[in-house]
């Protein structure tokens, strides 16, 4: 009894001390570093999705590391992020908010004929990425990527691809692969599923020939032997995944479903620098590294002008493939 209560007292004391130290620490760090008082992170999607999770992780790290005093997340969902983008584009010159976005938004701008594009905002940085994996059910007679490539080339329409929404990352990868193996991209038989789960069921159940999605969606089923990974879209092999890269398998394609942040359009140079510095401080913090690890996100940090020129190249490539698939005229 006595021992227990003493231990409890000690514990409580320690906890109190920790809280106080934390409080003082935050106060100190705020005074010393907080370059920005308030920042709104616009996640152009419903709570729970990739962009929302990115925004909420950023919120935690930016506040936790004392880079920004107060961060709030605002969800403006709809149409592959273009609804949020259109709203954000109205904030010209406003440095108090940043928009989270990524490759899916790039595709959605094109397929939705969005009146607003990434030219109306200021690219700040690419933050994370996830690679795409091509899978077949365990019982499939397609054993390697070469088998799939051959089948695709021989009869493009006979290979049905199960993946996410039309014009999204999965669809883009299927198009790029078909193009790279010399198949007729106009005959690409891509079957769009709304949630990851529905696609997964169709693939495991053998209702489509192969599946394509972010590695995270299929990882458990690959490990359990329900699905066979044919290839991964990363530049190098990934640890823990027994599959070659597309390039190794003779398909010259590399693709990451990247996510990044954008500032408002017509941003003053000083404001842009402040935001870039804040993002840079966030990426270099321990909290961010820990977040990447727990979420299984790849660090693909690329900031400022380098990110802008990457965006330009990505846009050219995506536009070309979406045109060939026939989604964009």
């Amino acid at each position: 009894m006595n021992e227990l209560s003493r231990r409890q007292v000690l514990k409580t004391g320690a906890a109190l001390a920790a809280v106080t130290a934390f409080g003082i620490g935050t106060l100190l760090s705020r005074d010393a570093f907080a370059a920005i008082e308030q920042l709104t992170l616009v996640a152009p999607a419903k709570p729970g999705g990739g962009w929302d999770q990115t925004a909420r992780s950023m919120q935690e790290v930016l506040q936790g590391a004392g880079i920004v005093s107060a961060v709030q997340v605002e969800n403006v969902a709809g149409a592959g992020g273009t609804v949020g983008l259109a709203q954000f584009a109205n904030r010209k010159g406003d440095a108090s908010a940043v928009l989270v976005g990524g490759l899916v938004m790039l595709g959605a701008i094109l397929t939705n004929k969005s009146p607003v594009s990434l030219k109306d905002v200021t690219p700040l940085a690419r933050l994370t990425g996830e690679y795409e994996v091509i899978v077949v059910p365990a019982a499939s007679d397609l054993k390697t990527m070469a088998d799939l490539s051959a089948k695709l080339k021989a009869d493009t329409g006979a290979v049905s691809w199960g993946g996410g929404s039309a014009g999204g990352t999965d669809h883009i990868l299927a198009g790029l692969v078909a193009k790279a193996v010399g198949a007729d991209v106009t005959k690409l038989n891509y079957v769009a599923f709304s949630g990851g789960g529905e696609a997964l069921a169709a693939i495991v159940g053998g209702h489509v020939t192969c599946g394509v999605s972010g590695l995270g969606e299929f990882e458990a089923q690959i490990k359990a032997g329900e699905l066979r990974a044919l290839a991964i879209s990363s530049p190098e092999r990934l640890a823990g995944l027994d599959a070659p890269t597309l390039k190794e398998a003779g398909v010259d394609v590399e693709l990451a479903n990247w996510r990044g942040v954008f500032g408002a359009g017509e941003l003053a140079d000083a404001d842009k620098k402040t935001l870039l510095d804040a993002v840079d401080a966030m990426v270099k913090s321990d909290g961010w590294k820990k977040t990447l690890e727990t979420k299984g996100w790849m660090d693909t940090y690329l900031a400022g002008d380098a990110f802008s020129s990457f965006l330009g190249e990505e846009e050219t490539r995506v536009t070309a493939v979406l045109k060939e698939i026939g989604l964009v005229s």
Partner: protein
Amino acid sequence: MGTLDALLQGFAVAFTPAHLMWSLVGVTLGTAIGVLPGIGPALTIALLLPVTYHLDPTAAFIIFGGIYYGAMYGSSTTSILLNVPGETGSIVTAIDGHVMAKKGRAAAALATAAIGSFVAGTLATIGLSFVSPIMVKIALLFGPAEYFSLMLLAFVTVSALLGSSILRGMTSLFIGLAIGLVGIDTQTGQARFTFGLLPLLDGIDVVVVAVGLFALGEAFHVAFREARRPEEISSVTGSLWMSKEDWSRSWKPWLRGTVLGFPLGALPAGGTEIPTFLSYLIEKRLSKRPQEFGQGAIEAVAGPEAANNAAVAGVLVPLLSFGLPTSATAAILLAAFQQYGIQPGPLLFTSNSTLVWALIASLYLGNLMLLVLNLPLVGLWAKLLLIPRPMLYGGIMVLSMLGVYSLKNSIFDLWLLIGIGGVGFLMRQFEYPVAPLVVGLILGPMAEEQFRRAYAIAQGDMSVFVTHPISLLLLILTAACVIGPAVLRRRKVAAA
């Protein structure tokens, strides 16, 4: 006996005071959000994720499970009392449930919904504990062709909702189908009927339409009528509790609803809506008093309410045993598992058996808590209807606006809601049933999507719908539902 042992261990974990408290927190929160249209369990769990990250995973999942089950209980309450379906799974409940409430039988409707939910939830949780692996195998047999045939079968149920005039019912259904076309086409990514309006790209949300038609339409209708006849005052009449007859009319629908809801919920594209439609149809077909349907038949509340709760448990089957999320809420739960570094899937029951069984055990307890929480309150809830109408309907409108705004924080949705409310008012005024519209809106896009998927995969070969055995079976059932009653009637006439 491995399963039973594991389940008992799960109970041991769930029965600790802390976990019981979290379960109570979950079911209370779930009931509250179920009451609000628009705020569903998916959104709530997503918003709670950062907070619960500091709890241990078992406690967090006990809360989430409670929210999930609780939401279904809560939404039936508002469906019955206020004609405001809190979740899409309770749209069917509103049809007869609200008529019962207006006739002074709110308490009986609420009680059959609560007890039916408890019975179905408990039986389905037992199903979840024991037949998960088999269910997943069956679910995987369903591809786009099978789903399309299932949707066709569900479409037949609309005939049960059409009301007295076929022409009016069909008109309502086709308005729903037309609204369902609005938005980005899933297979090609092209926009349809959006008139260049950005907020329409994602289509018109079923919740906006359902709340507009049911709640606002009703409020406008009452306001219009009350202005003419101010003397009309509603009162609670009849027995407050379920009568002996109510019990005997309810227990079979409860069981049938469970049998329908659980497997359909486990299907990757099943959802909670289709089982409620099918349940309504079956109850109407089997009832000795089909003419009472639409006029406040207790079976029409008991069956669908059991079906939606059983479906909720069904959704957990593919999620836990295959890592397969089949609804928005399941997708969020999957994200929550991953946040703790746990991967649901074929290996979950072995790698994290304590967590899974504690979660399942807490679902049994949560169900019991929900019953205890909801039943004594039934009388209290029913008194809500004694609130003077201007205040009651004013409150309903506030609740509706708040719920719809919380969907997407979109002002556009509010204008849409008011517009649809106007449509609902006119439909009531000219005696068009509103339920077929909502059914068309839910089923239309699903059926189209599945049909085009099946068609694409088969490279344009239409025979897939009859060469797949399950699909063929469903088509035969559909045909039997359409032709059967006519043949039976003719025989009866011939015999007489």
